[in-house]
């Protein structure tokens, strides 16, 4: 842009300045901005407010001094966390539960969608769908509540174990059972719901592909392997990438309901550790640092997942 060296007056210029455009925009869209004001205020306070509070991870926060007034301590809390006895345990638990989810919960929905697609009777298919979607809407407190009840020493499962002559187990107090119970209950609650998107992808497949395959003598298995699965592959890849993005974003609330000091060994993850340290023990700055560490990892994973999904296809989260 050339600066105006000549005697050109501002109102004579054809391109309005930034300031003019802002003013004009605010005049024309005043009502829209007024309507957006509560939304902006909400995000400002309840989403960007906590981001301002992140600085306490680098401070020794005390409620009396406030966030801004508390003294800086640099990376002390991070160093304490990395060298703490629990660091390895909660990282291993967090990653393992995330991986179990990826390995068992993720494919379960794909398999269910493929199996449902092979059902000829529409009524039967609809019924199975209705039933398997249901647990998605049940609160996690009720799901874990039922689990606690069925798995208690005197509960349904142990009654059956006794009936068949086995030794009853106190499942929820045994660390070796935690990962299995966390993952299998996630399958139970989510498998049907997760299959919706694959069923929709399958429904979009061009039927003439199947006809052509049949003419060529392909059996049902061949059709599934050569048409159905390749056709829904883009959907699978995108959802897989997104799942990697949330690999370490576990269902902390569910773990809080399920675990107890006897199973911390396999059940304690970053999120639950932050809750105990911060809310129960009031080590605000330390647990804010642990939480920030977790948020940064999640951000990095999600960001790279989003980037990858953009490269693989046009679909992205943002």
């Amino acid at each position, binding site marked *: 842009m050339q600066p105006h060296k000549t005697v050109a007056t501002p109102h004579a210029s054809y391109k309005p300045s930034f300031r003019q*455009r802002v003013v004009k*925009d605010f005049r024309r*869209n005043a*009502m829209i*901005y007024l*309507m*957006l004001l*509560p*939304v*902006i205020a909400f*995000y400002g*306070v*309840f*989403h*960007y*407010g*906590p*981001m301002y509070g*992140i600085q*306490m991870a680098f401070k020794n926060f005390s409620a009396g001094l406030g*966030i801004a007034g508390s003294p800086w301590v640099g990376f002390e809390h991070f160093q304490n966390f990395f060298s703490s006895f629990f660091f390895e345990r909660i990282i291993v638990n967090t990653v393992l539960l995330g991986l179990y989810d990826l390995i068992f919960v993720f494919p379960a929905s794909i398999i*269910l969608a493929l*199996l449902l697609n*092979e*059902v000829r009777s529409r009524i*039967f298919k609809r019924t*199975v769908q209705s*039933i*398997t*979607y249901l647990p998605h*809407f*049940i*609160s*996690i407190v*009720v799901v*874990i*509540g039922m689990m*606690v*009840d069925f798995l208690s020493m005197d509960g*349904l499962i142990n*009654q*059956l174990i*006794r*009936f068949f002559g086995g030794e009853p187990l106190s499942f929820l107090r045994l660390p070796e059972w935690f990962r299995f119970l966390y993952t299998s209950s996630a399958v139970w609650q989510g498998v049907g719901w997760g299959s*919706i*998107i694959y069923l*929709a992808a399958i429904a979009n497949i061009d039927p003439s592909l199947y006809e052509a395959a049949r003419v060529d003598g392909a*059996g049902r298995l061949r059709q599934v392997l050569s048409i159905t699965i390749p056709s829904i592959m883009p959907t699978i890849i995108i959802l897989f990438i997104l799942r990697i993005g949330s690999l370490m974003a576990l269902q902390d*609330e569910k773990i*809080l309901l399920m675990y107890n000091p006897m199973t911390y060994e396999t059940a304690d993850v970053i999120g639950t550790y*932050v*809750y105990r340290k*911060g*809310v129960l023990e009031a080590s*605000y700055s330390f*647990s804010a640092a642990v939480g920030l560490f977790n*948020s940064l990892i999640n951000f990095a994973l*999600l960001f790279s997942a989003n980037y990858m999904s953009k490269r693989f296809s046009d679909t992205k*989260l*943002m």
Partner: protein
Amino acid sequence: MNYTKPWSERMFDLSNIFFLIALSVVTLYPFVYVLFASISESSAFVQHRGILLWPKGFSLASYKMVFQNPNIVTSYINTIFYVLVGTTLNLIMTALGAYGLSRRNVMWGTTIMILIVLTMFFDGGLIPKYILMLNLGLLDSRWALILPSAMTTWNLIIMRTSFQAIPPALEESARIDGANDFSILMRVIVPLSMPVIAVMVLFYGVWHWNKWFDALLYLRNRDLFPLQLILREILIQNNTDSMMTGVGGGDRMPVAETIKYATIMVATLPILFLYPFLQKYFVKGVMIGAIKE
């Protein structure tokens, strides 16, 4: 087509059907068991072992206990309050946001949207959120369950996508009549968006009904507790005190068992009644969410 299925295919079909029936049974049976147990005679139920194929006797005594329990009744009313007020606020906020951010020619629209979507990627974390609530003086108040949950970004995206799909021509005549943006939203956009609004009501409503963790974090006063927090005490912490208020001596043990199940039923029935609508609209919602962009 005159085509006889090979033996292997028939075997597959049969085992597929069998597997799907087994999956349905495994999914549904816990609820059936809870239902049967809740309406059983408590003394007969306690003596029973193994799976229930039918209620043991019939008694609504445990339901009576549930409705006489002040903890459950208070928290039930609280939850209804949180669902009604929360969802109303959610709809207003989401509609305002979705309208403003779906308009073209709004200079700062894209910037605002980017700043909003950014919060899906990165958030301040549990502790800074908790300190914020402390500083705002919202701890131990009903607003602690309403204000931080005033809207969700995911639902904003769904509603915005749906608003963007409405042809601009439809609002032209209203604009010529001199209507401002707010009345265009109320008189043109909202009436055309009833399906997505239904999706939002259900999304937000179920969310508020099932939410418990915010209450655990922000509330100490038991009079404000939502149902899910009381459920947690009864079902998971096995806190019989909160369950047995108002039950006399000798009945305590057997009734304790069936009360649990009646509590689960009472807490889940609204969801089960809504389920046919939930299923229909949620599936739509998932699809809108999935095909954005």
